[in-house]
């Protein structure tokens, strides 16, 4: 059966080419039509193939399609081929769906921007790259998408290139990502030279024969892959680019830096679950790094005033959760959170975009407040998303986050400490998110009068996508209701065939990871306990930022050192600057001015001038007068003849 998978990536590519080649010659309406239609059709096609996939028997759910041979070099053969299995199907639907919604939103948000056409061109290219990433059936093609989304991220962060901070941020994002990609590449080399292929199917099938569980090679390979993931998904130590990435247009932040691209790392680890399962050390590293990132970003988010930066750190923090899930071998939970996060975080960003739009570009929450009245639709949807991210029961975030917390407690790789850190982070999350909501939508308006007069609700083209996402943020969690709440966790089951690392690929029907040894009672207790704590955190936010604002100020003053540390984002940028960037540039200047110009060129020129000096020394012999030359000739003759006589 021909599924024409390639259409899913071809359509956005066509949109990109059409808009890109005819840039500046098309009307805005036509540009946005091409862009949205191509992504929309791609989504529709994705849905169609998804149902075709569902129709297949559970164990054989995979559609593979080879387009052409890409790089043939000896034994190294990589095809341009696509794979549509449960994991990629989820990703395709999330990516294409959210992209489509954000495309629509962008029509309104970017309407007055002179770079309208360019914006949609880049956006379509991004969708193409992201879909290539998730549809690839081998690591190299995934890497294509991986770098492709990095490129689009670079272009879109620096979209307003006339602003130095924007182009700086774009460059930073690209370079930091490159550092991660470096790890990814080396990881691929190890895999290829051990396994002899980069195809998922081949790699996963042969990995158990080639690698020893817990062996040095597989640990190195997976750690390197994880380095790639930390770059793309903004984890410690490579998270520094994501907050700066907020320089891009807000829909871009929503699409690339919240919903899709940054989750590529999680997808990659889930995809490579076979490899990661064979390297327990790596799993531990992943879990620890993920939770550390989650905690650190959450604490930073407490002290930020820029609405988008709070959301950015929140994204980093939530990504940390996903990694924590992967780190405790709960890959499905990670992907589940990835999906729900895509919905509510995209919604949060788009909502903040709507706010910023109304505030005429103002992003500082200290100058907002009371927007509830002027922007009811934005407020309601934003509030729903906040409930979701905070983990209030009934909203999507609750199910996915709780799943992760439970797995980090109960899984073979989990531990109560991980759970405690995760819970603490969840409490912080609820606190800072409600701080954001209270500062922005409640209380008195703190903006100047001019702005106040212009406050308005955003147009339909922007609010409708918000509503759609709000609905998704609520219902998105119901595909994965845990057993303890009477559900069957269909999401995990659906992904189960892909998670061969968990069950050795042998059985596909039975649900193996049932958190053996832990009773349902424990699970329920922990769940209720965490909800209660989160509710307390929300109340504290309410008390500090709405009821008793002075107290918040006093606390800040008393803890000024801590606040400075958090507000300054632990000064990681400055540390990197002092430890890496400065020495690099100074070292390069040294190499250029001293080594290159002075030493190497100096040696070359020195040799030349030595020859020159010798020549100058000998030159007086050449007096220019004939008689001297004649004498020299005679002397030469005398010497030569003398030599022959004596010999």
């Amino acid at each position, binding site marked *: 059966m021909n599924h024409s998978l390639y259409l899913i990536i071809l359509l956005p590519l066509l949109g990109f080419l059409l808009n890109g080649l005819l840039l500046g010659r098309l009307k805005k309406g036509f540009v946005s039509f091409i862009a949205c239609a191509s992504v929309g059709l791609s989504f529709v096609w994705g849905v169609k193939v998804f149902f075709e996939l569902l129709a297949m028997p559970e164990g054989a759910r995979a559609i593979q399609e080879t387009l052409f041979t890409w790089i043939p070099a000896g034994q190294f053969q990589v095809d341009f081929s696509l794979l549509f299995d449960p994991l990629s199907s989820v990703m395709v639907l999330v990516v294409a769906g959210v992209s489509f919604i954000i495309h629509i939103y962008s029509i309104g948000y970017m309407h007055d921007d002179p770079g309208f056409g360019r914006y949609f061109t880049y956006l379509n290219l991004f969708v193409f790259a992201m879909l290539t990433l998730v549809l690839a059936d081998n690591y190299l093609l995934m890497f294509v998408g991986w770098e492709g989304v990095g490129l689009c991220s670079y272009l879109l962060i620096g979209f307003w290139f006339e602003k130095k901070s924007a182009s700086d941020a774009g460059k930073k994002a690209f370079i930091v990502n490159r550092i991660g990609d470096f790890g990814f590449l080396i990881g691929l080399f190890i895999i290829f030279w051990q396994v002899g292929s980069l195809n998922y199917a081949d790699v996963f099938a042969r990995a158990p024969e080639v690698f020893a569980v817990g062996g040095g090679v597989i640990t190195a390979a997976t750690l390197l892959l994880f380095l790639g993931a930390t770059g793309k998904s903004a984890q410690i130590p490579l998270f520094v680019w994501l907050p700066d990435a907020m320089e891009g247009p807000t829909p871009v932040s929503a699409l690339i830096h919240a919903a899709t691209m940054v989750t590529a790392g999680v997808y990659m680890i889930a995809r490579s679950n076979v490899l990661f399962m064979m390297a327990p050390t790596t799993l531990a590293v992943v879990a620890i790094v993920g939770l550390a990132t989650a905690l650190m970003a959450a604490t930073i988010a407490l002290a930020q005033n820029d609405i988008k930066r709070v959301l950015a750190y929140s994204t980093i923090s939530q990504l940390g959760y996903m990694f924590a899930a992967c780190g405790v071998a709960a890959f499905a939970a990670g992907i589940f959170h990835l999906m729900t996060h895509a919905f509510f975080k995209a919604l949060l960003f788009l909502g903040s975009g709507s706010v910023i739009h109304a505030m005429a570009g103002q992003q500082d929450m200290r100058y907002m407040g009371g927007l509830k009245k002027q922007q009811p639709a934005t407020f309601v949807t934003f509030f729903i998303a906040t409930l979701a991210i905070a983990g209030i029961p009934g909203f999507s975030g609750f199910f996915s986050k709780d799943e992760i917390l439970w797995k980090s407690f109960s899984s073979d790789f989990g531990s109560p400490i991980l759970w405690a850190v995760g819970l603490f982070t969840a409490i912080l999350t609820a606190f800072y998110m409600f701080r954001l909501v209270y500062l922005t939508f409640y209380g008195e308006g703190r903006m100047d009068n001019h702005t106040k007069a212009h406050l308005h609700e955003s147009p339909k083209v922007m609010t409708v996508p918000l509503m759609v996402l709000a609905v998704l943020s609520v219902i998105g969690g119901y595909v994965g209701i845990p057993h303890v709440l009477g559900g069957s966790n269909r999401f995990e089951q659906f992904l189960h065939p892909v998670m061969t690392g968990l069950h050795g690929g042998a059985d596909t029907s039975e649900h193996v990871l049932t958190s053996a040894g832990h009773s349902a009672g424990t699970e329920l207790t922990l769940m209720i306990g965490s909800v209660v704590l989160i509710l307390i955190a929300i109340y504290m936010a309410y008390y500090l930022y709405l009821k008793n604002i002075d107290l918040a100020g006093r606390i800040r003053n008393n803890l000024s050192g801590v606040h400075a540390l958090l507000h300054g984002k632990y000064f990681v940028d400055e540390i990197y600057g002092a430890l890496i960037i400065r020495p690099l540039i100074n070292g390069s200047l040294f190499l250029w001015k001293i080594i290159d110009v002075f030493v190497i060129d100096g040696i070359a020129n020195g040799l030349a001038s030595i020859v020159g000096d010798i020549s100058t020394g000998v030159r007086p012999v050449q007096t220019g007068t004939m008689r001297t030359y004649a*004498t020299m000739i*005679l*002397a030469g*003759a*005398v010497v030569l*003849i*003398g030599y022959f*006589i004596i010999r």
Partner: protein
Amino acid sequence: MLEVVIFYLSALIAIGGAVLMIAQRNPVASVLYLIVSLAAQAVLYIQLSALFVGALLIIVYAGAILVLFLFVIMLLNLRGEHFEGQDQKVGRITKYVLSGLFFIELVIIVRQLAIPARTDIVSAQTATDFGGVEPVAELLYTKYLFPFELTSVLLLVAVVGAVVMARREKSEKQGGV
């Protein structure tokens, strides 16, 4: 015996003419001394039965080339005072020593040469017309025809070259007129 006298006499004149030639301040006198030296050499040529070449030496060298020198000297109206300036004594002596060494080396070489037996010189077997016009001409027009013809080309080139070199520049001429 006469031969020996003629040889040493001619040799003495040739050497004396040469030395005096380079010792003169006045170039006209130099030319005249060179003619003397060449004449003495021509005698030696004839003594070596090179009649034709000896005659050429007198006619072409003394008669044509050196006269040309004289013409040029006259044309340029040269006097000794054109050549003031003093060489350093050391330099001068070095030059003489060098030339002397050169001469000594030549002598050594001549001594080391395996010179054919004495009898070869002016022996009875020698053809009577050795060095005469006819045999030389025969060689020139048979064995050495090609070089001989090339000589004509060389002379032609020399003539053209000399004309071009010695001619006044066009612009100079026009400027003069």
